[in-house]
């Protein structure tokens, strides 16, 4: 809601400037921006009459005009299409300053001297773009243009919250200004002069849907003459950001902006029947609104009809057929109360959020309807020379009923501050227009003014007291609270995982929850569909974090970042067996590019499977996970022969491996990528165990190396398991320390070398003991794997 200070000044007296007023309203009501005065900085402009206007001898589009500006006359060259002899416009004299700092000087235009220029509203900063020069209408030559056009009239803009429809009108804002500044507030003063035959003889109204339209007032104004609005009206509208379109339409806009109650003017002559019927539309019924669009309606939409013919979409937009035009003489003026929900639904469905619908869907002040209609009639009669027919057509409920809310003084103090006295409360509420009477037991009976139907409960009243008292005046208390502990192991796990991943040199990323149908399909599962995606390309919720991770790799590769080592901790969405939505925490990550950072003496290779597996195992080590198991898996993004599933205590927790050829094709990767995805909830369950102290070893360890030659397809892991098994208690540790292939070993053979560490908890081992166990291990390997000892 935009309003100028001078308009507010019609209803409330105040001394402060626009910036200060914006600050006051920001603190007491809602965020308010100070927009400044539109013509601030404009100088040297006067009202001037165009005496003659003749075609420029050397330019078809230009006119040479003689203009009289009171203290003298000048010749100016003008290119505006609307310049004509007899009109009064605005002359910028030489050395005048216009909006945006533009300076005017005397100069020749196509050979003819121009002593200044006739200006448009845009050149004065009054609007974005203008089609011609300003037409001031009937104004004395030499008048003060600054005042006339409101060049100094400061403008503020309020972010009106949905609970305050009253502030969608200047009067409502003025009431707030008056309350905040303890100033007097006055309502508009007008008189409706009626003449001729009563309105009820010329038209009637019928409410076929009293819920959709509880009350309908119509008034008739006849004998109007369409014409420009006087400067004061154009100025008020301009301050509110609305263009002047001619007197009759301007009056309807002015009254809407003043009271916050939209009204509509029908061209009476063009109403096919003089009987207004407010009813629900029939399914498929159509109406061409005044923007030229044909609207197809449903039985939820409310229509204003003349007889049976639709003439307006109630509360949203009028019909084109009955619109006011320059030819309009007689107007039937509608001032109605529409059901907010009905208007809101239709406006949303048809995507027609108009100034009218915005106000009706928040709710209007039904008690002011008579004034609203009267104000509009009086202004039309005054500005367009019409006659107001006596009386009004007025159907439906006459008012909403009075609301009285109890307010316990103790409750106010308990919520806000002990400093608030009963007098304070009464004062604040009274300033806001509430009627306060003492009730029993230290409470107040507060009658809510009709324009404040947002106030329904005691809490609402407490807010009114709080904001007028000022939140800044309430003393801040810092209470002492005992520290709570968070007992969520899954959450703690996510934090540990994050530490581990960062420690392993991976960057954390956060990617979108929305994915494309292609990636949803590639990820498999049963993805959840978003019915109204913001981006039509990504209508599904992710079932895996990997596609997002791959997108990040692609994005970084595209901007030249080649080494991408990333992880994400986030939610994936799916369905459980019973069809309910489920959300699971996952960890995903991927690495590509070089194995290490290039250094001056080292050129690292591109990553391979073992680099990636190292990251995963590093994570498990950091999480103190013992004995991870690898298994078959079903991760659709990973290669079937370079990836594996990960299990803990027999439960699958995820998968890791090289990204498959198909996945790389989908993302356009022509380089190796290692990726992994783990179920964090499952991991949390497996890792949430207490650590226990074990005495540190007291006896020396003995190391023996062992190298065997085995067939190429023998897995190191199987050999390791056999060694561990055969080593029994004395084998403390075994590591693979070399894998070797060479001609002297023979084809399809390889050598695996192991470092075995023997140790006992209770004694120093003798050579004989170690030799025995070592021999058992060798025997077993020779037997089990067809191995030979390598010398």
């Amino acid at each position: 809601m935009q309003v100028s200070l001078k308009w507010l000044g019609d209803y409330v007296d105040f001394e402060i400037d626009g910036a200060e007023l914006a600050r006051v309203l920001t603190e007491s009501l809602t965020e308010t921006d100070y927009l400044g005065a539109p013509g601030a900085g404009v100088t040297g402009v006067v009202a001037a009459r165009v005496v003659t206007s003749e075609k420029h001898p050397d330019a078809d589009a230009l006119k040479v005009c003689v203009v009289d500006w009171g203290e003298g006359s000048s010749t100016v060259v003008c290119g505006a299409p609307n310049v004509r002899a007899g009109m009064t416009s605005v002359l910028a004299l030489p050395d005048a300053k216009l909006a945006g700092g533009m300076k005017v000087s005397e100069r020749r235009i196509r050979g003819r001297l121009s002593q200044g220029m006739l200006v448009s509203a845009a050149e004065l900063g009054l609007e974005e773009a203008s089609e011609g020069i300003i037409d001031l209408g009937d104004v004395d030559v030499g008048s003060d243009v600054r005042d006339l056009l409101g060049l100094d009239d400061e403008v503020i803009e309020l972010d009106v919250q949905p609970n305050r429809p009253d502030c969608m009108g200047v009067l409502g804002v003025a009431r707030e200004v008056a309350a905040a500044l303890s100033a007097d507030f006055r309502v508009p003063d007008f008189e409706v002069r009626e003449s001729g035959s009563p309105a009820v003889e010329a038209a009637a109204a019928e409410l076929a849907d009293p819920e959709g339209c509880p009350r309908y007032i119509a008034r008739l104004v006849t004998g109007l003459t369409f014409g420009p609005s006087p400067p004061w009206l154009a100025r008020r509208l301009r301050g509110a950001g609305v263009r002047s379109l001619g007197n009759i339409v301007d009056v309807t806009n002015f009254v809407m902006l003043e009271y916050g109650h939209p009204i509509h003017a029908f061209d009476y002559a063009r109403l096919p029947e003089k009987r207004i019927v407010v009813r629900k539309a029939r399914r498929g019924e159509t109406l061409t609104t005044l923007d030229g669009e044909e609207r197809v309606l449903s039985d939820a939409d409310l229509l204003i009809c003349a007889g049976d013919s639709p003439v307006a979409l109630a509360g949203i937009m009028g019909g084109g057929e009955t619109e006011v035009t320059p030819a309009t003489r007689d107007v039937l003026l509608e001032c109605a109360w529409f059901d907010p929900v009905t208007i809101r639904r239709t406006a949303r469905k048809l995507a027609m959020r108009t100034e009218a619908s915005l106000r009706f869907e928040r709710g209007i002040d039904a008690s002011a309807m008579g004034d609203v209609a009267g104000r509009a009639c009086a202004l039309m009669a005054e500005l367009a020379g019409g006659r107001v027919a006596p009386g009004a057509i007025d159907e439906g409920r006459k008012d909403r009923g009075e609301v009285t809310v109890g307010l316990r003084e103790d409750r106010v103090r308990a919520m806000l501050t002990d400093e608030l006295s009963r007098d304070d409360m009464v004062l604040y509420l009274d300033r806001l227009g509430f009627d306060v009477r003492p009730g029993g037991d230290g409470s107040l009976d507060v009658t809510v003014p009709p324009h404040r139907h947002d106030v329904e409960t005691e809490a609402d009243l407490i807010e009114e007291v709080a904001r007028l008292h000022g939140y800044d005046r309430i003393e801040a208390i810092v209470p002492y609270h005992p520290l709570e502990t968070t007992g969520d192991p899954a959450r703690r796990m996510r934090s540990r995982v994050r530490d581990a991943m960062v420690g392993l040199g991976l960057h954390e990323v956060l990617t979108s929850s929305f994915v494309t149908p292609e990636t949803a399909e590639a990820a498999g599962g049963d993805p959840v569909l978003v019915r109204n995606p913001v981006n039509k390309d990504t209508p599904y919720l992710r079932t895996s974090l990997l596609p997002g991770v791959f997108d990040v790799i692609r994005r970084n590769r595209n901007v030249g970042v080649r080494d991408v080592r990333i992880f994400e901790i986030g939610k994936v969405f799916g369905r459980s067996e019973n069809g309910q939505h489920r959300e699971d925490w996952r960890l995903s990550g991927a690495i590509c590019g070089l194995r290490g950072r290039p250094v001056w003496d080292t050129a690292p290779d591109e990553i391979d499977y073992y680099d990636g597996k190292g990251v995963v195992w590093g994570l498990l080590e950091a999480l103190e996970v013992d004995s991870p198991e690898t298994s078959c898996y079903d991760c659709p993004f990973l290669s079937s022969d370079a990836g594996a599933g990960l299990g803990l205590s027999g439960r699958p927790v995820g998968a890791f491996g090289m990204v498959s050829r198909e996945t790389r094709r989908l993302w356009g990767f022509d380089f190796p990528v290692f990726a992994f995805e783990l179920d964090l909830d499952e991991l949390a369950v497996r890792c949430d165990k207490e650590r226990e102290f074990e005495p540190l070893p007291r006896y020396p360890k003995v190391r023996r190396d062992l190298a065997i030659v085995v067939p190429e397809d023998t897995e190191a892991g199987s050999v390791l398991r056999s060694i561990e098994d055969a080593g029994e208690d004395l084998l403390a540790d075994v590591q693979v320390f070399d894998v070797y292939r060479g001609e002297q070993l023979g084809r399809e053979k390889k050598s695996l070398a192991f470092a075995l560490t023997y140790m006992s908890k209770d004694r120093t081992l003798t050579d004989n003991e170690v030799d025995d166990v070592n021999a058992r291990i060798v025997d077993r390997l020779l037997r089990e794997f067809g191995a030979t000892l390598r010398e």
Partner: protein
Amino acid sequence: MLDRLREIGEAAREAFSSATDEKSLEDARVAYLGRKSELNRISRGLKDLDPEERRRVGRATNDLKKELAALCEEARERMAEGARRTGALDLTLPGRVPWVGRRHVLIRTLERLEEIFRTLGFEVALGPHIEDDFHNFDALNIPPDHPARDMHDTFFVEGGRLLRTHTSPVQIRVMQSRRPPIRIIAPGRVYRNEASDASHSSEFYQLEGLYVDRNVRVGELKGVLTKFLHELYGQDVGVRFRAGFFPFTEPSTEVDLQCRVCRGRGCPVCKGTGWVELLGAGMVDPRVFEAVGYDPDVYTGYAFGLGVDRISMMMTGTDDIRLFLENDLRFLDQV
């Protein structure tokens, strides 16, 4: 014998101090400290001396051995130092730095906020992202067809469910699951069906707070949020509480921070007002308590919410919210 030891000592000192390279030092070591050195021979021969002589010569031999070993070590260090000076080791060449990872900037902001609120006695609560109408709207006093729903452009999924538009439904879930006192913060991702631009994203992060107990007052809300902002931005930063509107709090307040760019004097960042909006807050609306079965005459409380992305943007000077979910590593390394 003692004279001989003195002679050996002199010669050895000369040899160690004049050694200029590894080779000459090693030669000196072998000559004077080696197994076949004269000193070693004297040591081995000690047992043949009479007790008095053995004691005197033994001590002198040991002292000399210790001294020479120290000299040898000193010479070795001198050589290493020399090697460093002559360029075998260039201290200015880069070291072999392993890959260094980083937490996402939004996560770091969240962790910072959580840390502050935890010291103020709040615990973390989480809730689902796929919500129902009751928890996201109705229970928070946002009835169907209410204009306040315009503040929440909502994504709908099948089964009448929706993606939470704020973290406030976590309030409702926590209150439904236990009795006061409740003191929680609920951080997490939220979803709004609106077109993205530099300051709007359809997925972003919020942190919600809720405190419910007997006799909770506006003053405590002010105290806790002021304390929070002072922890985050420093004790001297200005904080302003002004009127606001949220359907689930009554009274409602917006909390502004003094603009950190101009220190309150007015600049383009704060649109000349000297203040930047940072938090929404208020006393829990009694209708919300009724929705979860609390007696509003017994319990009062406050709630607050803030945008994690916005705070991250202010902290790092990031001018486009979309950068956060784009994950350009060059950006993530900057902020």
